[in-house]
């Protein structure tokens, strides 16, 4: 399998006044194509810093980071913006959709910054992705007219629209109720089955049951890195939930 992400002895220090905060103290792992990895840790464990680094928003103090075979850590701001645009799909806890904007326009957003995609192709791809996440009926609904679950689906469609090599989800179910969480998780599992590579950062240990691999972080170091050979189905869990918690 192709190596999508390879990090070697990644360190990230921040200078806060006189002190140096060591957010990452040497993290190494390799993620192959088609993996669904959950990264867990309590707050302060360095998982946000790791996510920012993997998402090319931040550069490591030392260590090596190869994304899809490309060395990222020496890149300048604009090059990193381009990498984010072409290779990464972001999903955030609070969806981060543009207000008063239709689902289509929100999903088209990453392609606006890619001059090689024409307006026509942009609309086609956005529509396909929205149908893919089950929002074919709500293409032109505005973001503020949709429920949390629907908004997160739009955000997932937005993360898929540029055909990224990796999808980075930051607490993607953190703001949703249990039932909606499971339906979103079901969607992630489907994307995984279809061959997408997903990194899901969360502090919720239950989610490890549904991913193919779980990495635990503590104080900027990996404490465990285990493959899950008995992946639970989020769809079944959703069915098992009592019916009264409607979306």
């Amino acid at each position: 399998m192709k190596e999508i992400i390879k990090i070697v002895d990644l360190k990230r220090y921040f200078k806060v006044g006189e002190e140096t905060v060591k957010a990452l103290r040497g993290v190494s792992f390799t993620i192959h194509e088609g993996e669904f990895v959950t990264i867990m840790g309590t707050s302060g464990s360095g998982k946000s810093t790791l996510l920012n680094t993997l998402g090319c928003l931040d550069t490591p103090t030392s260590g090596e980071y190869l994304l899809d075979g490309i060395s990222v850590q020496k890149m300048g701001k604009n090059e990193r913006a381009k990498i984010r645009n072409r290779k990464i799909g972001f999903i955030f806890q609070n969806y981060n959709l543009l207000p008063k904007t239709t689902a289509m326009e929100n999903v088209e957003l990453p392609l606006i910054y890619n001059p090689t995609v024409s307006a026509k192709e942009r609309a086609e791809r956005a529509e396909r992705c929205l149908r893919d996440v089950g929002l074919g009926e709500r293409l032109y609904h505005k973001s503020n007219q949709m429920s949390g679950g629907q908004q997160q689906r739009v955000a997932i469609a937005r993360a898929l629209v540029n055909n990224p090599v990796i999808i980075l989800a930051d607490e993607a179910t953190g703001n949703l109720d249990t039932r909606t969480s499971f339906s979103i998780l079901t969607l992630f599992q489907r994307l995984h089955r279809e061959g997408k590579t997903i990194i899901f950062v969360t502090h919720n240990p239950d989610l490890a049951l549904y991913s193919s691999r779980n990495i635990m972080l503590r104080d900027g170091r990996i404490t465990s890195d285990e493959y899950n050979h008995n992946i639970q189905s989020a769809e079944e869990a959703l069915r098992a939930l009592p019916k009264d918690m409607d979306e």
Partner: protein
Amino acid sequence: MIAANLLKVALKAMNNNKMRCFLTMLGVIIGVGAVIAMLAIGQGSKNSIKAQISEMGSNMIMIFPGSENRGGVRQSASDMQTLKPADYEALSREAQGILYMTPTVNGSGQWIYGNNNYPSQAQGVNTQYLDIRQRTVSEGEMFTEEDVRNAAKVCVLGKTLVENLFPDGTDPIGKVVRFGKIPMTVIGVLDEKGYNTMGQDQDDLALVPYTTVMKRVLASDYLQGIQASAVDENRTQETISEITDILRDQHRLREDQDSDFTIRSMQELAEMISSTSSMMTVLLAAVAGISLLVGGIGIMNIMIVSVTERTREIGLRMSIGATGRDIMMQFLIEAVILSVTGGILGILIGALATWMISIFANWPVAISTTSVVLSFAVCTIIGIVFGFYPAAKASRLDPIEAIRYE
């Protein structure tokens, strides 16, 4: 490609905040409107002054006896005896730059016809006076060269005199009026010209051959002045120095002696008047320009608010691949659209205001293309200048912090 997309993004953002955009634009609209209207008023009054001056003859040159820089007690020009008919003849022989020329000798007194009388001037001139002053004889005819040679007792009356001497509407042509004790035959009536810029009644005069005034009215050998028109109004200055040379020669003045005559040109007067009006225009435009500047600051203010308000959006755009430059362009385009749209509306409103001023206040106005082009350019520059700081601020945001901004 990206620029077109950014334009769409900017338009979309503005569409979401229509009221705010309009209020922001209002500053620019009022500023530009004021600049356009003020410049139109300034330009209009300048044009009308120019027109009046050229009506008076903008290529006119006036020669008076007496020096302007001689010390001691100075006499009034008409009492000085330095200009003689011989000077006039010398000028008409030698001066190349002069198109028309007339000696002037004025006598004042009472014009009398029957029971009516009116105090006015008898302007002693020759036949070229009409060409210099750009006047015509509307009834009857002008006196001839021969009348001048013979010091004939004929006169051409201005409208004001006609009205006062012939209040019952009698045709004055051929009637004999008296100037003081001297009887004169009315042979023509001048066209009506009304009051000039200085408030003088240009119809309150009578033209008489200058020889008649010299010999029969004043009994004097001297001229009170010479009026001439230059061949080319742009070469008035050269003509003036030519006249100076000829007259100094004629009067046999040495190098170190002051001239015993003074030359004035209408152009000097025109320049003086139009420089006053230019200064007014600049002043008005400056005041209006300040309001335009305030409008620009309004744009900057609202853009800064907008950048802060949309920090999360900026963070999101950056994290999905917008470069700092993309963000900067987005906000800069927004600022420029605000200012340029405001500018266009301002030009329209300024034009409307100008039109209303000309209709209701009846002021002379003229919108110049320059003022329109200039305000448009200034608006664009204002958009860029005042949009730059907020846009740069937005482009420097750190996406990690921006996206978590509450």
